[in-house]
Each structure stands twice: as structure tokens, then as C-alpha cells.
């Protein structure tokens, strides 16, 4: 399948590039995104890549669906044929992908990653092995969502996969690195969250005053690098704002979450589990 579209709203269409989550698809959607941005430019009010789709929002005052679709079609003729199933997904045409890998320093420690021990116990690994394992993989940014700059990264090595917490924490500090199911992510801003926390990055993942506010974009590739406490602090990391002081405090904090949950204050995690190929 090249792509197909669906009407998803009064001023949106969703392009589908595949039915299953696949690393090769991430590159392909990124490519399609670039083509559409180049050729349709400001005509698109929004262009939102996700695991298998690209959402397009257009301006009803100046645009119409028929001409938009015609131009989308033209723009996407430059999109190469999809890879056949089973073909190694690393063999894409992007070329300089090694150079594109973004390195994120992480201080892996129970003081900032209160679930590090439980992840290790679950995996039957030592904490050091968990760290090596998390740092050993290269991750793809499947999508940005839930909160500004929140990047869904996949997939984590199988042994580190873990269901999210039964009760989400009322407050997760910015920079916290978590695992849920087969994905990993960094909380860009303080928010409620139910992912298993294993460390914290000193980097600011989202800064509205930067030219590019979000450090990560869908389609990018990421690796984690373990750093010590000293380097974490040197790079501007904070330790004075941790919401989990005592076990008692945490219990109260969790209780508070339940009442404040409106439509969704939780990043979703079920995606990979259900879209997984095996």
C-alpha cells in the first residue's frame, strides 16, 4: 500500500501509510511529511505524524478537499515504494542516519528513578544491566503527543518492557525517563504520569523560548547515555524538586490523582502492545 486517506473531521484528513507499527514506516512518514511541507507549505494548518498516519488540517476559508487531495497526491508521487515485509528496515534511503541520532544523557538512579529496582527485579537483571540495556538500543520517535514535546520512543529491549503503574503518580518531574509496555519516554514538563521511572535527563525536552521548542520530532532517532550524579548536576540537572520525598507523601500524592483525572491525564501506552507484529 502506498497510502490511503480518511475523512476524520470538518477540516482534517488522515493519511494512512500502513496498518501496523513498523520502524520502516517512521522513516516513510517523516519523508512524506517533508514532501508535503515543502510542496504545500503554509496551506497546511497542521501536519501531525504518528505511528502509521499523518493528520492534515486545512483552512476551509481558502482551501477545499478536492484540490488539497490532488496536490497531496502530486506531492507524494516522489515518495519511494514501501519496503516489502520482512526486508530489514534499516535499509532505508535516508542515508546519513547515524549522524541524525540524538544522544540524551540520563542519570539512572533510584533517587530520580524510583522504579529502577522493580524494573530490574522484573527483568531478572542487575540495575547496571538494566542501564546498559536501556542505553544499548537505538530508539525511534514514533510520535509526539500527550504533552508538549512528549516523545513516544520505541521499542525498548524486550526484557525491559513493563506495564505502566496501576496508580499513576500525581506528579512526575520534568526530565523523568520512563518505560511503559514496549515504549520509553521522557516527561518534558511536570505532569501526572504512570510510566515506570528509571532515571532523569538534565536536558530541557521542551522550551517554548527555543527556536525549536521540542527537542525531538517524530521520525528522529535517539540513544541514551548513562551519566553520573556529578555530570547530571553539571549539565543543569535538578535534585531539589523531587515530588517523592517519603513513601507516605507518595501515597497521598497518588490518592490526589484519582480525582483530578479528566479526559485523559495519562500518556497512552497500549499502542505497541496491540500493534505489535508478533
Amino acid at each position, binding site marked *: 500500500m502506498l497510502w490511503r486517506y480518511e475523512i*476524520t473531521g*470538518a*477540516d482534517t484528513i488522515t493519511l494512512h501509510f500502513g496498518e501496523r507499527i513498523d520502524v520502516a514506516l517512521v522513516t516513510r512518514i517523516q519523508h512524506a511529511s517533508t514532501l508535503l511541507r515543502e510542496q504545500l507549505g503554509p496551506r497546511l494548518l497542521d501536519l501531525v505524524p504518528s*505511528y*502509521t498516519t499523518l493528520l492534515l488540517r486545512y483552512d476551509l476559508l481558502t482551501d477545499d478537499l478536492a484540490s488539497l487531495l490532488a496536490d497531496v497526491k502530486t506531492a507524494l508521487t516522489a515518495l519511494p515504494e514501501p519496503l516489502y515485509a520482512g526486508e530489514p528496515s534499516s535499509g532505508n534511503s535516508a542515508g546519513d542516519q547515524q549522524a541524525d541520532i540524538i544522544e540524551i544523557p540520563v542519570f539512572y538512579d533510584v533517587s530520580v528513578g524510583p522504579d529502577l529496582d522493580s524494573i530490574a527485579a522484573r527483568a531478572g537483571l542487575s540495575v547496571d544491566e538494566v542501564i546498559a540495556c536501556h542505553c544499548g538500543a537505538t530508539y525511534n520517535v514514533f510520535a*509526539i*503527543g500527550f504533552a*508538549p514535546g512528549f516523545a513516544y520512543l520505541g521499542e525498548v529491549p524486550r526484557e525491559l518492557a513493563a506495564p505502566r503503574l496501576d496508580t499513576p503518580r500525581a506528579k512526575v518531574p520534568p526530565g523523568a525517563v520512563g518505560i511503559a509496555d514496549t515504549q520509553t519516554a521522557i516527561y518534558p514538563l511536570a505532569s501526572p504520569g504512570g510510566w515506570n521511572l528509571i532515571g532523569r535527563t538534565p536536558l530541557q525536552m521542551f522550551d*517554548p523560548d527555543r527556536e525549536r521548542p521540542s527537542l525531538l520530532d517524530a521520525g528522529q532517532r535517539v540513544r541514551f547515555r548513562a551519566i553520573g550524579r556529578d555530570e547530571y548536576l553539571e549539565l543543569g540537572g535538578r535534585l531539589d524538586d523531587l515530588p517523592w520525598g517519603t513513601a507516605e507523601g507518595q501515597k497521598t500524592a497518588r490518592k490526589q490523582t484519582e480525582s483530578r483525572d479528566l479526559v485523559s491525564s495519562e500518556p497512552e501506552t497500549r499502542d505497541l502492545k*496491540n500493534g505489535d507484529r508478533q
Partner: protein
Amino acid sequence: MTSQPGLTFRKPGFLSLLQDSGRRGAMHMGLATGGAMDRHAWAWANRLLGNPYGTTALEITFGGVEFTSTLETQIAVTGAAVPCLVNGTARSLWTTIQLHPGDTVTLGTPKSGLRSYLAVLGGFQVTPGLGGSCATFPREGTGGLHHDGRPLAEGDHLPCTPGLKPVPNRKVPEHWQPDYRSELELAVIPCAQIERFPASALEAFFSQPYTLTPQTDRMGARLEGPALEVIGKTLISEGTSLGSIQVPANGQPILLLNDRQTIGGYPKLGAVTPRSLDDLAQRQPGTRLRFRPTTLHETQFQERRFLTFFAAGQPARRS
């Protein structure tokens, strides 16, 4: 500190947010779109004052506001039926109101409707933030007066432009002022995923009433009514559309609104039209709603008519 004249708020109200037509080109960063929830009332407030479509106004949820003007200007208050007093004297909504320096305006609790829009001649002078918008996002901590997503607080001062040529007194014709107590039937564009819902679920959705629950905010409207059966409960997350009708595992639909998350993975039956969402924004929790199917063609026709009326051929900002 506040060298620029404007409106100073002694009472900020329950939830008052600067809003415009929302962000563009920011969803891919995980940033919500935002914008006035009831564009009809918001656009009229600006139009009365000759402000171009898109001008920043204050969206006041559930009234309870008091402010003093430090300049000679005109304002308009539209939307929810709140008592509006200027220096203690009752004034009409949906009309231009002249303010002199020192005049105090109070807006009471709505008798009907939910959101009031306060616009000022020339618009509030706030620097746009991400996505070119002045909209306020408390959940994200972005946008608004201080660019930190904070709702209006006691003592906040909204800067205005002094010395603008006044507009003639205008009033929105009464037959164009909506009655927010009327029965509401929301128009729905069926979307491709409607195939995931068995005929019995669709029959129930389009024939039975649903109730707007208190778990409703600018992100989404949670409804309560006949539970809808879905075939295949989870999907791969994708970019979200305004008005999208998501059906989670419990079968109770959620309508995704202006401050919705940018991606989501629940099955979607369709999307409520933007014009219906304008009407919905004025309904308080407990309101009974019905749904009717419409077409994309009809929706876009109505939407273009709305946008053309308010956005096209507007007079340029006077100075």
C-alpha cells in the same frame, strides 16, 4: 509597571482565559490548538467593535468578573446570559458599551449559557506565543497574558490600545442571539472508523439522548448515555480532530474539544461539526443532547458561510 492603559481585574472569575482563533502549525510538537470554545459569541463580540476575525478576547467561564477600565474605550460582552453592570447600572449584552476611565464593570453568574466573551476596541494587546496565538493553556503552562498558561488572576491588567476611533453603537439583532436553553442536536460527520460500531450501537447513538457530565472541560466533553459497543477496542494512536467522538472501553463517548491532546487511539465514530461545538460550549453539565448525522459537504458549506461572514471582508483595524 503597567504603563499601558487597559482593564484591571479585581475579580478574575472562576476561569477566565485569553482566547483567539487558536494555534496553527504547533500540533506536531504536542501542543494543543486551543481557541474560543464558542466562536459564534466570540466572533460577534469582536465584530461589534470592528475588530478583525481572530482578535484576542477574554473567555469567561461562569461569570463572576469585576474590572475597572483605565482608558476611554468600547467593549462588548456576548455569550452566556450574565447580568452586566457598569458602575452599578444594568447594561445589555451583544452590544457595544462605552467605557470611561475609572468605570467598573461586573459580570454576574449566567442565567443561561456558560461562557461569556469580553472584547475590547482594538483587541487586548498581548504578544502571541507558540503557534502564533494568544490562547491560554493552563494544562500545558503555555500561552496567555504571561505566557505561562495561567488563567486570569486577581490584579491582572489586560493592556488595550488607547486613542482608537470609536465605532458607532451596534447591537446584534435579537434573532441572531442564541437561546442557550434550547434543545441541542449535534450534527455529526460519520468517519471511516464508524465501521467498527455495530448497527445497534449506531442506532442507539443517533436515537437516544446523552447527558453532558460535569467531567467536561476545554479538552473534552464526557457524555453519559447508552453504552456503545465497539469492535476492536484499541487502535494505533493518530492525530486528533476537533469534535472527534472517541469511544473508550466503557462505551461512553468523549467529544474531543479545542484543548484536546494531539494524538489519541480510541475508536472514533465521527466528528461533531464546528458549528455544533459552538452551541455545545454554552451548555452546562446535565444538559441532554441528541445527535444527527450530516455530511462533510453540508458541514463545510455551513462552516465556510460562518467564516466568510465573520472573517472575509472585515474592515482593517482602525488607528
